[in-house]
């Protein structure tokens, strides 16, 4: 119900207009660099998400921190990360990253068994850092363009490519095939909520500090999202030298 109302409102905002393309060449360059033609709509959804955060997610994250110990939270975080391993593995393969796929599967097998369903990270002494992959990154590696920036309700920053990836990644998840309705829906929504609370708790200070000090939190979030996605797509490798021009 809430979501339907929201979608209607969102649709109305789309019709009400995209950001107008500026005529001035400098303003136009800035407009293109931001890659955000749907900015008015995105800002509305961003404001909605911030409201959900203020009313629900942040209080729940604080409550979660109050009633758990760091050890328990670490276990939950490990468990959730381990659940994502099959999707990462599939995307490692799709990107032709055989070595990283082997690392992912080794971590998954060890942590799921010796690490008791992933609660304990028994492979943190390995020679590699754990990593995550998703279909959005795979599409980028394949050369698919990112498309306009999007803010998704209840989710946050994305772009067209990442939104498609988000949808497609479900089909790499073995749990889709193992669970029958309505268990699958329960599983996925449960995992999504747990993942959101875990992520919010882990960044309580940083997130709030960023929000407090930003001149325009919407733009900060957009800039950081675009940069961090590019960093993930490069698998953390340094940016090309051509990007560094002081002028």
């Amino acid at each position, binding site marked *: 119900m809430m979501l339907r109302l929201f979608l209607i409102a969102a649709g109305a905002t789309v019709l009400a207009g995209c950001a107008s393309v*500026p005529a001035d060449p*400098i*303003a136009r*360059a*800035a*407009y293109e*660099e*931001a890659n955000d033609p749907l900015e008015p709509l995105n800002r509305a959804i961003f404001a909605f998400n911030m409201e959900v955060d203020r009313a629900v997610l942040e209080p729940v994250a604080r409550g979660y921190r109050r009633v758990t110990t760091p050890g328990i939270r*670490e276990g939950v975080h490990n468990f959730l990360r381990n659940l994502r391993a099959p999707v990462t593995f599939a995307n490692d393969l799709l990107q032709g990253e055989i070595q990283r796929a082997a690392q992912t599967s080794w971590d998954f097998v060890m942590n799921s068994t010796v690490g008791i369903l992933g609660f304990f*990270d028994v492979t*943190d002494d390995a020679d590699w*850092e754990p990593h995550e992959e998703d279909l959005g990154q795979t599409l980028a590696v394949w050369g698919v363009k990112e498309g306009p920036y999007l803010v998704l309700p209840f989710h946050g920053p994305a772009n067209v490519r990442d939104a498609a990836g988000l949808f497609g990644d479900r089909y790499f998840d073995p749990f889709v095939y193992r669970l029958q309705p309505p268990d699958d829906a329960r599983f996925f929504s449960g995992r999504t909520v747990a993942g959101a609370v875990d992520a919010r708790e882990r960044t309580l*200070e*940083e997130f709030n*500090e*960023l929000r407090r*000090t*930003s*001149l*325009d939190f919407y*733009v*900060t979030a*957009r*800039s*950081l999202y675009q*940069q*961090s996605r*590019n*960093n*993930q797509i*490069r698998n*953390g490798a*340094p*940016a090309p*030298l051509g990007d*560094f021009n*002081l002028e």
Partner: protein
Amino acid sequence: MGTKTHAKSHATGLWRNLTLAVSLSATLALLGNAALAAPKDAENFVRERGAEAIAVLNKPGLTDQEYAKEFLAFVDRSFDVPAMAQFALGVYWRQATAPQREEFVKLYKVYFINTYSQRFRTFSGERFDVLGVRPVNGTENLVQSRIVRPAAAQPITIEWHVREQGGQQRVVDLIIEGLRLGITLRDEFSALVQRGGLDNLLKALRDKNLTFNRGV
């Protein structure tokens, strides 16, 4: 007689050519060394300043005020703040008048110090490693480094964009886990200028700086 003079002049000519060749190659070698020394200097600069920064971050029982003071001193010694400010203003720097530029650089410094001092405060670690250097051009280098953290926490990757000017190295940007400080600020500033001109940005910075109460 004639041949003798000729031989002599030939010998002097040879000698002259030889000295010329030697001095030329010496000059070239010196120039070459200077060009090669720059990345090494940048690397050493980052190694030294990074270790200093970690030492401050690891100091136990530092009050907010003491920390803010240490941070400001560190920025003054190691960063080229006017260059960072100019980069963050991007194309609008050229449109700004001299008084606007001057005010912007001042506001930028206060904003940068107050915003990033707290963000950096979580970067305490066990060890600071310099991993390598990439030259951008004759005076600028990108130095890769890593803060190794205790227990299971993942290391933080920091790339330092360093520029040499008048024989001194200065930080002009930091790239933390692939996020460029200069780009993040430039995107934000650009959005504010687009919405209400340079004065809108200056006003937003002035207002925001008033909300900081940690001195500086």
